[in-house]
C-alpha cells in the first residue's frame, strides 16, 4: 500500500486536502463556532457525493472512453433504494404512533394499509407495489443500492458492448436508457409515487429527536469518507495494469483486442463498478437533499455530470472532483440568487435567468480552448514552477 501512495502522490495530496476540509468544516459548523449554517453543511455534503459520482464518471469516460449519459440514473436508483426505506420506516413510525391511541391494538394488515395509504395516497393507491417488498429492511435496501445499479449496468453494458456499440452511439444509447427509466418513473403506476417522488428523506427513522445540525454533519462525514474510499479505490484501479489496459481501450479498442484482451469484459467491469459507486453516492446524496423525483434522473443530469468532468479535466481523478465541486457550488450560488444582478442600463442581467446561458457557453469555451479543463492548470504549474 505504501508503494501505491508513493507512486500516486496526487492521491495522498487529495486525501490530506479532503481531511483538512472536513476538519475545517467541522470547526466552522454549528458544532464548532457556528459560522456555517446547517443548510450549507448539507450543500457541502451533497457536493461531496456529486464529487464521488464525478470521479466514477471520470473513470468510465476519462479513462475508459465510454461517454456514459446514464450514470446519473444509477445515482438516482441508489437514492430511490435508500429513500424507500427512509420513507417506509418513518411512515411506519408515524402510523404506529397514531394507531397506538386506539382501544384495540392494530393488526399487521391494518398497519400495512395505513402506511400504504400514507405513502401512495398521492397517486390514488394504497397497495404496496412489488418493488417495495423489502422496504421494511434497511439491510436489504442498502443491498439494493449496490445490486440494482450494478445489475442494470451489467445487463445494459453486456448488451451494448457485445454488439460493439461505441462512441457517440453508445452515448445516445445510454441516454435512451436514462430517458426510458425517468419516463417509467414519471408514471403514477410505477410504484414509486410518479412525479411526486419520495420525500421527507431528511428525517432519519430512529433519530427523530436528533437535531438536523447533527444529522447533516454526520452525513457530511459519511459523504467525505465515501469520497475518500471511492477515490482511493479508483486511483488504485487506474494506476496499475488495469489502468493501462482501459486507457489503451479508450485510445484504440481494436488494437487492444489484437493484443488478446477481451475488451468487452473490461468495459463491462468498469461500467458496472462505476455504476455501483454512483448508486452509493446517490444513496448518500438524497437523504441530504430530502427529496428525490424522476426529474432528477432525466438525461440532462447525466450530461451535466459529463460537463463537470470535462470542466474539471478528464483523465485525472482530482480534476473530476474539482469540476463537480466548482460547477455545482457555482450553480447553486448563481441560481440561489447569490450572484448580484448586473444592471446594463437598458437591461438587467438577472443571474437566475442567465446562469444557464453562461454555463452553456462555458462548456463550449472549455471544450474549444481548455480541453484539459481546470485540472490542466496543475500541469502548467508543475511544469513551470
Amino acid at each position, binding site marked *: 500500500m505504501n508503494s501505491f501512495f508513493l507512486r500516486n502522490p496526487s492521491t495522498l495530496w487529495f486525501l490530506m486536502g479532503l481531511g483538512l476540509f472536513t476538519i475545517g468544516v467541522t470547526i466552522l459548523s454549528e458544532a464548532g463556532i457556528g459560522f456555517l449554517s446547517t443548510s450549507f453543511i448539507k450543500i457541502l455534503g451533497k457536493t461531496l457525493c456529486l464529487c464521488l459520482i464525478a470521479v466514477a464518471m471520470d473513470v468510465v469516460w476519462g479513462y475508459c472512453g465510454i461517454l456514459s449519459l446514464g450514470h446519473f440514473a444509477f445515482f438516482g436508483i441508489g437514492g430511490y433504494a435508500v429513500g424507500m426505506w427512509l420513507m417506509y420506516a418513518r411512515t411506519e413510525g408515524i402510523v404506529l404512533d397514531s394507531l397506538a391511541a386506539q382501544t384495540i391494538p392494530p393488526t399487521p394488515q391494518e398497519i400495512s394499509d395505513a402506511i400504504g395509504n400514507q405513502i401512495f395516497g398521492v397517486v390514488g393507491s394504497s397497495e404496496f407495489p412489488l418493488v417495495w417488498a423489502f422496504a421494511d429492511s434497511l439491510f436489504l435496501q442498502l443491498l439494493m443500492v449496490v445490486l440494482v445499479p450494478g445489475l442494470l449496468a451489467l445487463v445494459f453494458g453486456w448488451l451494448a458492448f457485445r454488439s460493439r456499440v461505441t462512441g457517440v452511439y453508445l452515448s445516445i444509447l445510454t441516454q435512451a436508457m436514462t430517458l426510458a427509466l425517468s419516463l417509467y418513473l414519471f408514471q403514477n403506476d410505477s410504484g414509486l409515487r410518479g412525479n411526486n417522488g419520495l420525500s421527507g428523506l431528511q428525517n432519519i427513522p430512529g433519530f427523530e429527536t436528533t437535531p438536523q445540525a447533527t444529522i447533516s454533519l454526520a452525513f457530511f462525514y459519511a459523504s467525505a469518507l465515501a469520497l475518500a474510499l471511492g477515490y482511493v479505490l479508483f486511483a488504485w*484501479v487506474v494506476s*496499475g*495494469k*488495469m489502468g*493501462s*489496459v482501459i*486507457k*489503451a481501450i479508450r*485510445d*484504440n479498442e*481494436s*488494437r*487492444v*483486442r*489484437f*493484443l*488478446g*484482451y*477481451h*475488451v468487452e*469484459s*473490461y468495459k463491462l*467491469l468498469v461500467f458496472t463498478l462505476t455504476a455501483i459507486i454512483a448508486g452509493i453516492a446517490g444513496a448518500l446524496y438524497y437523504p441530504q437533499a430530502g427529496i428525490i423525483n424522476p426529474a432528477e434522473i432525466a438525461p440532462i443530469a447525466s450530461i451535466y455530470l459529463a460537463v463537470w468532468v470535462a470542466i474539471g479535466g478528464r483523465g485525472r481523478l482530482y480534476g473530476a472532483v474539482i469540476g463537480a465541486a466548482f460547477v455545482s457550488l457555482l450553480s447553486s450560488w448563481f441560481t440561489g440568487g447569490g450572484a448580484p444582478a448586473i444592471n446594463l442600463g437598458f437591461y438587467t442581467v438577472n443571474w437566475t435567468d442567465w446562469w444557464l446561458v453562461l454555463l452553456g457557453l462555458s462548456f463550449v469555451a472549455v471544450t474549444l480552448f481548455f480541453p484539459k479543463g481546470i485540472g490542466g492548470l496543475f500541469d502548467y504549474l508543475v511544469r513551470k514552477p
Partner: protein
Amino acid sequence: MSTLLEVSGVSVSFDGFRAINNLSIQIGEPELRAIIGPNGAGKTTFMDIITGKTRPDTGRIIWGDQNISLLGMSESQIAMAGIGRKFQKPTVFEDQTVRANLAMALRNPRGPFSVLFDQQTRAGADRIAEIAAEIGLTDSLARTSGALSHGQKQWLEIGMLLAQDPRLLLVDEPAAGMTSQERAHTTDLLKRAAKTRAVVVVEHDMEFVRRLDCKVTVLHEGSVLAEGSLDHVTANQTVIDVYLGR
C-alpha cells in the same frame, strides 16, 4: 516444419467486390514468409480474416496442432491462441510509456480480474528489459511512446508482438517510412523471430523482401498468383504482367 496455419478456399466480398477470391495458403512453423502484391490484391484483408476482424463468406482456416478452426473465434481469442499482428500504421498507445505498452503485451492472464490484481513481477520486468534490448529501446522504457520516432514506434510494435510470444506473427509493411539503417535492424529482428516461430510479412518494397531471403507468395485480385523464392516469382511472366500492368 509442420503446418501451423492452413487457409483454404476462402472468399470474401464487400458490396459485390471480391476482395479475396478462393484463397489458399499454408504457413509452416518455423517459417518466414513474405506476401507481396499490387494495391488492392487483398493483403490487408487476408490479415483481417486471419485475425478475426473480417469474417469470410466461405472457406476454412485451420490452426495449430489440434487443427482448430479460427472461424467463429473473436479477435482476442485468436490473439490468445497465438497469432500476433502488427498494423500498417504503427499503433502503439501513445499516452503510455514504452514499459506500459510492453507490459500490456506480455504473455500473462488476460482476464479483467487477474489484470486488476496484477502484481509486477521480477520475471515480467526481466522479460520487458530483454525485449527492450532486442528492439533497441532500453533507454526509452520510461518515455511516453508518443514521443518516439516513427521507426522506434514500429520497433515498439514489433516488440509488443514479441512480448505476446505468439506462434504466428503477421507483420504489415514493417519497413514503411524507415531509413535504410533502420530497415537493416528490422530485417534482423524479423529473421531472428522467424527462427522459433512463423512470421508472415506483407511488404511492397522488393528490396526489403529480397533482404528477408525467404519464400514469397504473390497475391493478385484476392488469390495466389505465384509462390516460391523471390527470384522464381519475379521470373514468372504473369507476375511481371501484373506488376507492370498496373
